[in-house]
């Protein structure tokens, strides 16, 4: 069984400082780290690896990411590959996945590719499915749990759990080879031992450029998007139900002005015995259907 894990080098959210006026991030203050979801992915890959299996880690990024790949090797990955070329200027998901797909092919296709579900910088969780399309493989996103029985591997299928809304889960089955997008924080990456940490410190990481991957700059051409402006976060006022016509005019105005964000003008019960108050709460719960079926 051969497993590939995609690792991204991202700024530590704790070091992100946004200029309140321009919304720009102070780039020289950023510290980088392994994308948290990828940490789970790597650890799970190492746990899943059968005795004759291998785990190879892949990254698309500049040389700074070598440190990350070295740490993955120290933690137990068998091999690492970094993809970069002077012709590459950014890591847009579309371009990243063309490169990742080519690199996976160049390193002999694995049986399973694990990605993080989401990267914490400018990512949008589309890499797993984009990669799946480039490879022509199936994909399952928001995976929270998976395991593999030996007989499953034989049958070429595996079972996974994925997240649904409000804590529910779905059990899915996917045919191998496949790509999984894993949730953040499922498990922590193991700590590398001191000897292995020292061993990898100067281990060179193989670098694939466009030429090695058999690609040309034209292959990376894609309709251009213009980043028009970066700005500080401004929450969007939430839409609300139109004001209730039974309320007084001032109350309706207040409702409109608050855009439904605050001050719902609910019912306030400031009298009665505790007994009556408890009854009022029970009535409320019943009215809103919280007592019929407890989940």
């Amino acid at each position, binding site marked *: 069984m051969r497993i590939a894990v995609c690792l991204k080098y991202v700024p530590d959210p704790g070091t992100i*400082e946004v200029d*309140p006026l321009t919304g720009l991030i102070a780039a020289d*203050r950023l*510290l980088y780290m392994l994308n948290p979801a990828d940490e789970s992915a790597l650890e799970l890959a190492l746990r899943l690896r059968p005795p004759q299996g291998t785990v190879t880690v892949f990254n698309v990024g500049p040389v700074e990411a070598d440190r990350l790949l070295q740490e993955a090797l120290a933690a137990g990955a068998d091999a690492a590959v970094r993809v970069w070329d002077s012709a590459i200027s950014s890591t847009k998901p579309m371009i990243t996945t063309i490169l990742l797909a080519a690199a996976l092919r160049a390193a002999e296709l694995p049986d399973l590719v694990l990605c993080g579900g989401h990267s914490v910088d400018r990512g949008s969780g589309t890499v797993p499915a984009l990669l799946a399309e480039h490879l022509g493989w199936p994909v399952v996103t928001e995976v929270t749990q998976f395991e593999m029985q030996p007989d499953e591997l034989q049958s070429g299928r595996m079972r996974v759990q994925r997240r649904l809304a409000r804590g529910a889960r779905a059990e899915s089955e996917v045919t191998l080879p496949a790509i999984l997008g894993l949730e953040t924080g499922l498990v922590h990456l193991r*700590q*590398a*031992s*001191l*000897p292995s*940490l*020292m*061993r990898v*410190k*100067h281990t060179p990481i193989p670098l694939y450029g466009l030429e090695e991957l058999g690609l040309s700059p034209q292959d990376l051409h894609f309709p251009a998007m213009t980043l028009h402006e970066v700005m500080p976060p401004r929450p969007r006022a939430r839409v609300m139900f139109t004001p209730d016509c039974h309320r007084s005019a001032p109350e309706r105005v207040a409702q409109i002005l608050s855009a439904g964000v605050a001050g719902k003008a609910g019912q306030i019960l400031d009298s009665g015995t505790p007994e009556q108050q408890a009854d009022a709460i029970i009535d409320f719960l019943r009215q809103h259907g919280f007592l019929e079926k407890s989940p």
Partner: protein
Amino acid sequence: MTALPAKEQFDVIVVGAGPAGSAAALLSARAGLKVLLLERGEYPGAKNVSGAVFYGSAILNQLIPNWWEQAPVERYICRRDIAFMSPTTAVALDFRCAGSGYATAPYNGFSVLRPKFDRWLAAQAEAAGAFLLTSAVVDDVLWDDGRVVGVRVRREQGEIYGKVVIACDGVNSFLAKKAGLQREFHAHELSLGVKEVIGLDPAIIQDRFHLTGNEGIAFEYLGAITEDVHGGAFLYTNRDSLSLGVIGQVSSLVERRKRPYELLERFKAHPAVAPLVRGGKLREYSAHLIPESGWAMQPKLYTDGLLVAGDAAGFCLAAGLYLEGMNYAIQSGLAAAETAIAACRRGNFSARSLAVYRKHLKQRHVSTDFRAYRHAPSFVNGPRLQNLYPEMIARSMEQIFRVDGAPKRKILPLAYRMVRQSEIRPGQLLRDAYQVARAYLW
């Protein structure tokens, strides 16, 4: 790298990549020794706190000529102020120097941001051939036959061996204690520094502090700033931010039930300080201990197979006019490296062989400075010099300058009245004057 023999993998193991550790590793590596530099942070400087004005420019210049051209320095310091404060007034001694050595190479001091500076210095050690390992917390020293032979890193198979270990792990050194060289400190020997970095437009900084180009200032404050807690405050300019903080003696913080950040808030709100920080944006907040008792806290500096340098050895001069630790950290780190190099040449790592460390420290003026100022800390950290006198000076000025129709008093009677009000006995005043003189003048 294939598996090395189990013992003596390295010539020198340096613990802690602060200024002391990086300097020690740099010099040892340049001498061709096999050096391991261990740092617990994710990168050197990740957790390090200082003011910070680095006054060791000339020292570093000998190691790395024109170092400031490549290092992440913020501004060179060409103006220093000492201000004596009452709750509403401030009297300042303002020193400016546009002349040689201050505003020209090698410069007297630079403001630096420690996370960047420490990282850079450690990278120089790496470039010289030292092996830097981060995220490596040392949690024990290894002994063999009564001699330190290595350290243990908190990781699987974390034992690692070396001929000499140099402990540069900062104030409250864990290693010096483990090696039985240092005792536990008393609360009155330690100060707590709390510090903020406040972002501000470089153009505003230049305007506000009357600076041009890369000039910078270092202000120190004494008196009512820390209320009745023994301590002081500082404010330094960086390229596009200010570093400011309050330092308070731990024992008096505890006694007076003061929280350090309350003092910092009060400091920032003082009429002499508020306009300087106005409009700034908080970038980081940190707190760190400072060893303040100089000579008195010095551990035994070496034992079989181990040397102690930097804050770990108490080489931090925090005495009123001075707040200098990084320069002494580097000096003592270099002295430790010189000692280790000599020991490696001789092949003898016993305490007797390492005793030349004292000589090297003296040659680098570390021990001489600390001896010279040995009287300063106990007195400077006392209540009268830190709180009472500065406040009296500030209040006196308030009286002297006041024009309110009442008859003008001459200065002496005024001062006399101030002293009387403060309930200091004249004898004590004299004795304090002598103490100041002894601490700083001769």
